[in-house]
């Protein structure tokens, strides 16, 4: 039995007892291992807004660098209840459920074309989604009966990705973008959306993007139908695609 009810409108980290706000964090500073380094870590934690900072462990990583583990207290709270109400949570289907759903509601192979685009060489994310091997023991879409997949790899120009999607009559175009330095990825991601618009196909095709820094909010601004971040498994993506196709078939536009 819980000691007391959690107030979901004012949630803060938990360690020993509810609401204690205790946080464990670790980081490295580019300073030599010393008492001054320890002092610097404490001051930095205070500057981060944490209370009662405590260095519980520190050691030299390599000459000139010191690694810290700290306990700190977080006074801020977050309103989980209202986030929950906003309906961002989706229930994912299992691989079997997806196959059954697709067979019932889509009734044809679902064609998807994916790539890591622009100058981005990171291909692990898109491979995790599409290739048979998949991710953490979950098949990629290639392993599903319902899907016909084309993985174009990395550093694919938007024009080439779009041309392939049109050629094979893709239901969905999937983009992976890992490098977010200098926001170059933003222009590259919006360009694809705008090219799909220029080809007059924006309403026909599902556009999804993914990567460590992608959120649903960013996806919306970029003009994608969904955004997927860290922790995504192929069945998350597949759940979204089959449901979206079924919804679009139900409401012809």
């Amino acid at each position, binding site marked *: 039995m819980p000691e007391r009810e959690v107030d979901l409108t004012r949630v803060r980290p938990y360690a020993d007892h509810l609401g204690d706000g205790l946080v464990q964090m670790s980081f490295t500073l580019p300073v030599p291992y010393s008492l001054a380094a320890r002092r610097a870590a404490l001051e930095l934690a205070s500057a981060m807004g944490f209370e009662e900072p405590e260095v519980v462990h520190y050691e030299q990583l390599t000459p000139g660098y010191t690694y810290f583990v700290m306990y700190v207290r977080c006074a801020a709270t977050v309103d989980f209840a209202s986030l929950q109400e906003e309906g961002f949570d989706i229930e994912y289907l299992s691989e079997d459920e997806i196959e059954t759903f697709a067979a019932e509601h889509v009734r044809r192979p679902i064609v998807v074309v994916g790539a890591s685009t622009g100058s981005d060489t990171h291909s692990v994310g898109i491979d995790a989604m599409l290739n048979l091997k998949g991710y953490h023991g979950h098949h990629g879409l290639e392993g599903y009966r319902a899907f016909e997949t084309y993985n174009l790899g990395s550093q694919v120009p938007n024009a080439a990705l779009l041309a392939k999607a049109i050629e094979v009559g893709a239901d969905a175009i999937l983009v992976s973008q890992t490098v977010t330095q200098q926001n170059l990825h933003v222009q590259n991601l919006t360009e694809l959306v705008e090219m799909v618009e*220029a080809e007059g196909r924006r309403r026909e095709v599902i556009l999804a993007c993914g990567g460590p820094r992608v959120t649903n909010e960013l996806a919306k601004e970029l003009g994608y139908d969904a955004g997927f971040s860290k922790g995504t498994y192929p069945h998350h993506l597949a759940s979204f695609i089959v449901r979206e196709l079924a919804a679009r078939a139900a409401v012809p*536009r």
Partner: protein
Amino acid sequence: MLLSELTRAAPRLALVGLAKNTGKTVTLNALLAELSAAGTPVGVTSVGRDGEQHDVIDFRIDKPRVRLEEGSLVATTDALLSASGTGHELLDRTGIGTPLGEVVIARLLSAGEVEVAGPSAAQDARAMADAMLAHGAEQALIDGAIDRRAASSPHVADGLVACTGAVLSEDVHEVVARTREAIELVRLPTLAADGPLGAAAHALALAGSEHGAAVLSADGAGAALLPARYALTAQAAEIAALLAEHRDAAAIAVSGALPESFVRDVALAARRSRREITLVVADATHVFVHERGVEHYRAQGVRLAVLAPIDLLALTVNPVAPQSHSFDSARLRDLLSEEIAGVPIFDVLHPSYRGAQPPVSRALRSRP
């Protein structure tokens, strides 16, 4: 003259930024404040997301909220509408999904701040604008997102307000140069539908996107259809061979997207064979050139032309790059007007601008 007066004749007005943080939302708020002062009923939608608290990429940047008057119409998601806590009457459920929920059209029962996230597809944004006009709005404002331009297509909106700002570069001359290039792109010359090239290109456009592209001779005769997806896939050698085969080719009409790689390769072939080629597209939102400007390609022998023009009504500037640098507003506008003729240029937050004060504090420009 006020921005709202300049743009009044466009029932569907698109706002497009040259990049993030060029002041689209501030411009939108200025328009809303002026229209409200004039008692004009408005509708608002966004192809992205507008009125959010923090920038989606740089969380340190506070964003201006969107304030709507009682009676305003809005196309946004049901979740964002309820989160705003503003009383409203639900008019339509659209069935259009976004990453932030289903889009609905509502009328506000009291004034309030609402986060606006309408449909992402330009055609759907057009449908929202039309629906809001039908529900009694006199003007529908379609806000863009980041650097997306699709909603400014003449097939979607009747007029455009473009937004530029210090965020484009730390060098004021670079800001001016990049803005000039973007505006040149918006104002590409229009081929008269009754001229020989124009007529042939229009005919191709009507034939639909299955054909994709065609080579045209100067008299409009002898249009040869090109393989599907030609502009997206053709390589330099293929294009050179095409021009060698069609000695009288004066133009290539492309019905879909015109990527920079294609423009570059046509320029290469045109220069080598000392010819001039016009690339014709439906409208400026079909052209994707980032690396070089329209003028650069013109010097190489490639002209760009459109079948339908975009009506650029005004340019607004944000002299502040959030979390970075800023320029003197008057100087920036002076430099811009020296380079860009025929467009009124405003800084809607500058004291010299006489609009109704938008309910956004200057502080939100977060001076560095």
